[in-house]
């Protein structure tokens, strides 16, 4: 890891050879390595180390096991939006055993697995895709006459690292949904030791690739949390970096599919979005590398929490998420606020009645005061003996 400058790699023969092999321009290849390094949250200089490692190091042997699953994880790797991604994956690793991609079949395939394991003993990476059935001795999933439990234990024994890809391998996923007839389980409980998990249904291929490249470059898998998830990808809630977060904070929610708020791109929390209780980096690198803006929330569908045990495939899609950071208030403004009504007949009548009464009462008070004032003035004049004219003070005084 001596070289820490991408610029110095511009004329490197290995880099040129690697980019030619991948069908990329040299610049694209270096950019790709820089992006991956940034995704992993690694310091400056790591991108050069990664480029060097990808270009020069011997590719790690990978044994890829399939159990109870839909092959969606593999499909998402192979059908990535970036045309070079699957090439890069297949270039970075030496995929020595993969049931979906094998041309071989039967004993021929099983022999290849045993050969690869023997040749790369203690150095290969075991990737498990799919849940492992544990009920009734694990008889519900067998490959070549061996149960999934046996195969996993056998392959894991001499592996340098074990990666559980997808939610099924990570914590049981969809096959483990109640009532879980096969006793589907993640890899870690079967092996009895923690493994690196990359949950998601399917997970973003970048997360897998980044973990593998990290292994390739630094000889170890990236730092993980208590559930074995790489911290670079799963340390933040979907909610935290969501592009609709501002709508959540402002209290602007889509209340049902197709309503005005939904069409305007408001927050999907009230439609059951599980973003607030799901740890994944979908908002930043999007879901499944399916192209810009096409992650579920971007398309207007609530997150179903596929990476999160107890949320994905467990909570109904329309069930409102349990907030993990901030609780929203109960009341919110409506999407379309009433702008107020003008004067109603009743209100105008009340106002007119008050105005009339006030004017009338004011006039009477003023007249009474005027009359008594005149009477007083006359009285004063009378006392000074000038004008004895009679004065009336009999105005209708309000009987307060």
């Amino acid at each position, binding site marked *: 890891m001596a070289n820490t400058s991408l610029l110095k790699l511009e004329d490197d023969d290995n880099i040129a050879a690697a980019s030619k092999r991948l069908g990329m321009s040299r610049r694209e290849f270096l950019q790709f390595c820089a992006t991956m390094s940034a995704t992993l949250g690694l310091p400056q200089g790591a991108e050069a180390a990664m480029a060097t490692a990808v270009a020069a190091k011997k590719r790690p042997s990978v044994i890829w096991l399939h159990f109870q699953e839909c092959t969606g994880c593999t499909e998402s790797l192979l059908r990535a939006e970036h045309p070079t991604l699957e090439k890069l994956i297949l270039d970075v690793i030496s995929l020595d055993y993969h049931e979906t991609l094998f041309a071989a079949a039967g004993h021929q395939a099983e022999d290849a697995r045993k050969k690869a394991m023997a040749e790369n003993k203690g150095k290969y990476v075991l990737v498990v895709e799919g849940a492992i059935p544990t009920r009734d001795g694990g008889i519900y999933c067998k490959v070549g006459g061996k149960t999934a439990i046996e195969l996993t234990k056998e392959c894991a024994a001499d592996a340098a690292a074990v990666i559980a890809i997808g939610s099924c391998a990570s914590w049981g996923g969809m096959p483990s949904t109640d009532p879980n007839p096969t006793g589907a389980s993640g890899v870690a409980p079967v092996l009895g030791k923690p493994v690196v998990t990359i949950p998601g249904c399917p997970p973003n291929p970048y997360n897998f690739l980044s973990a593998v490249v990290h292994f390739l470059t630094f000889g170890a898998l990236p730092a993980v949390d208590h559930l074995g998830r790489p911290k670079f990808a799963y340390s933040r809630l979907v909610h935290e970096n969501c592009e609709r977060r501002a709508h959540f904070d402002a209290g602007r929610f889509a209340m049902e599919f197709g309503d005005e708020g939904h069409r305007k791109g408001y927050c999907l929390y009230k439609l059951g979005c599980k973003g607030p209780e799901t740890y994944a980096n979908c908002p930043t690198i999007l879901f499944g590398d399916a192209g810009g803006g096409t992650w579920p929330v971007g398309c207007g569908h609530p997150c179903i929490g596929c990476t999160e045990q107890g949320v994905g495939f467990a909570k109904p899609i329309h069930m409102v998420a349990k907030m993990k950071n901030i609780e929203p208030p109960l009341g919110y403004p409506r999407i379309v606020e009433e702008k*107020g009504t*003008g004067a109603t007949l*009743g209100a105008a009548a009340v106002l007119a009645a008050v105005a009339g009464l006030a004017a009338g009462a*004011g006039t009477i008070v003023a007249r009474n005061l005027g009359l008594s*004032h005149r009477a007083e003035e006359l009285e004063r004049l009378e006392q000074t003996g000038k004008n004895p004219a009679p004065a009336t003070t009999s105005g209708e005084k309000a*009987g307060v």
Partner: protein
Amino acid sequence: MAHSQHLAAPVGGRLLNNATLVAGVLIAIMAAVLLARFIFGLGAVTHLNDGYPFGIWIVVDVVIGSAFACGGFSVAMLVYIFNRGEYHPLVRPALLASLFGYTLAGISVIIDLGRYVNFWHIYWPGYANINSVMFEVAVCITAYVAVMWIEFAPVFLEKFGLHDIRKKLDKALFVVVALGTLLPMMHQSSIGTLLVVMGTQVNPLWQTQMLPLIYLLTAISMGYGVVLFESCVAASGYRRKIETHLLDPMAKVMLGVLAAYLVVRFGDLLVRGALGEAFKPTFVALSFWVENFCFAAPFLLIGNAAARRNPAKLFLAGVAIMFGGVFLRLNGFLIGYDTGPGWNYFPSAPELLVTIGMFSIEVLGYIVITRTFPVLPREEAYIKAHA
């Protein structure tokens, strides 16, 4: 109030009569509307909306109500600050009206709050935003209500013969009186500042940095106007002699404040170049001229000394200045206030009935207290002294 043995006495008489009966009915109607408001919420009763969050419960009951209630402060200022003891007989009745005005303004705020149970947040350390104009107004008005009840306490102490406490209170009363002058000056000007915060939503005729001064000056002159009004109505209603010898010079003071106000008001309009707005053919411009006609009317009505001896003219001048203040506040907060296209506000009938009920409480309270407690000057003493 050490020198204040000015011989006040209860008016006496029956408490149940036509006026109290009508007020009672109006208060009952208000209670019914408020019951609906507290069960079904503000939206069910009022026409308030996001564009007009201040309805008449705030603008009339609080902003205008508290300005009407400046009589106590205006007269107290005259008596205690400018040391014009001769006006003392006017203090108690004016203070009574203020007491009701402010107490009801405080209650109106709580009624108008959507989440009224959280009203205490505005005072509570941690919740309170000490940089807010609203905070200043709220704290000041609350403090002033408390101060006024203490200021008015001698009336109740006299009635119930608690002379020891009365004497003790007298010694400390000067502090309370000083606060009672300071606090209204603070919040009456801050009520104007509330509008400054609303920026260009307020028509240029009423949007100026001078608003605090404008609101303070009109509140003081309205205070004197209310005293004129209240003295004349009390005299007319209770068939008493009118204190013309006091009201005449006080009206002169009022005209002085009013003249100062008009100079500030039109000077500001001219300097800002906003007067052109007043000559546009709009309802808002008409409302501006009605407002200023009301402020100018007292000069026509009681401009000369002979006219000031006529209680009818004093009464009308008082009414005119009150209406001037009413229109100034209505224009700033509602009529000349424009949130943007489409927004609209006119109070609903139930909203109006609550405001009417609030003023009915003031009338009823005034009648009951002046008939039962020593508030108004004693008639015989008055006659003896001035025969």
